């Protein structure tokens, strides 16, 4: 469910989407399947980087 700010601001929308994806990737990284574990970490790394790159410039949370 998107809030009004996300709908109005594409940057906020992308950031919120990636935040949710990162939480999902963290869940995937908890897998006990060793073959999938590295691939999920690969996916998580990509999402984490994109989250950093898509963080709104004016955000107080402009963390690496």
């Amino acid at each position, binding site marked *: 469910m998107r809030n009004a700010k996300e709908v109005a601001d*594409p*940057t906020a929308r992308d950031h919120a989407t990636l935040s949710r994806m990162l939480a999902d990737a963290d869940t995937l990284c908890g897998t006990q399947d060793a073959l999938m574990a590295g691939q999920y*970490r*690969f996916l*998580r*790394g*990509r999402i*984490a*980087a*994109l989250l*950093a*790159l*898509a963080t709104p*410039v*004016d955000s*107080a949370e*402009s*963390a*690496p």
Partner: protein
Amino acid sequence: MSTHAQTSVGRDAADIPFMDSARLARLASLSRGELESLQLRKLRHQLARLHVSSGYYRRRMNAAGLAPDAIGSLDAFCKSFPLSSKADFLADQTEHAPFGDRLGISRSDVALVNMTGGTSGQGQEIYGRSQRDVHMQGYYHALPWFLAGLRPGDIAVNCVPSGGLTTGGWGPGEGLRIIGATAFHVGGTLSTDAKIDLMLRIGEVNFIYASTNYLHTLTEALLRRGLEPKRAFPTLRTLFIAAEGYPIEWAQRIETLWGCRLQEGYGSTQCAGFGASTCADGAITRAGGRGLMHMFEWETLFEVLHPTTLEPVASGETGELVVTNLAIEGSPVIRFRTGDSARFISYRDTAAGRAWNAIECGTVGRFDDMLKIRGNNVWPSAIDAAVFSYGEVAEYAGRVYTSADGKTEIEMRLALTDAAAAMEPAARERIIEAIRATIKERTNLWMVLTQCQRSELPEFSYKARRWKDERQQGYRL
């Protein structure tokens, strides 16, 4: 072919990347105060993380009495955070092999290992990058190329050798994938003529990435075959170079021959890719002067310092680049002295309308006597160590130059001791070949060695200056 050319009609080339990306437009619109606030927020986060995860940086912060969350300004950081050097990193790696205590992430999270060339004679810095960093390194290549006009679906030819242990071997591949370009990684795998044959078969090449010297070699080879680059590759929009300096006249001639803009980037392993680029403005200005490489300061904090006083240089002056990674988590550098010299241009003097500081194109060099030769960083001290490990050598002199066919050549004239000079020719030849092989082993470079009389070489009464770099004179097309 991409539709970029069609959509660019009526738009100023320098403005296009900022019209095509809202995020870039926002970064371009930041005031200097806003940009520095962003840097400070990211810096505090980086330092807080490293205070917990990196013994090397925690010790430096504690020694300086710095608490990450108490750093009130960039100025306070730059005045109080201790500088690091290559020697500091090598000592750290020796004590905490292999990555050093500066790693900043769990060893098991290292997904890519990059090393510096090892040709300094001092040792190789080791960098352990996380999965997240692998993407960031790609982004630090994609960003300047996007700014230079590369777009999804474009055909790109990467002439820089791929893979191996260097950042430059991995970052371009990631960067081209991130952009969505169709990449041909021809560097190090095909001869120059084979590259040209392939490019002709591809036809619609939009982007070429190469070292300065290799672009020269490629251009020469095309001309030798009677091919005019701009007619052979009419869809080419961007030539992007890095790594070596060049005369303005050469850059002008390249643009004329290829019929497109020449763009340049400044990058390094310490920057985890490119830290600055010409954007879409070109390596030479419309008026014929040297262009500017605008720094991506929201990703990398740059200082340009006088190498002796360590005070910031004024706009227009040359200083040493000191870099701090704001967004790299594995083996980040914090106030690292690169040894690279660059002419600093304040954002106020760039006329670009952005708050990004800049450095001049085509003139990035070294404060020490390091030579960049065919993509290798070579210190004369390392060559000295190789040559003078043979007691038969009295003195030598070397020069790097651009040959008539556009290749970088290295010539060394050797004078043997009187006793060695009196040996049979075959014995002397064996010694010279052995020296040549030792130099190759230490520097990764083959050199042409010739024997001469001791009297033909200079006497050094103070600091030996055995090397001459004559490549700038050689870039003639």
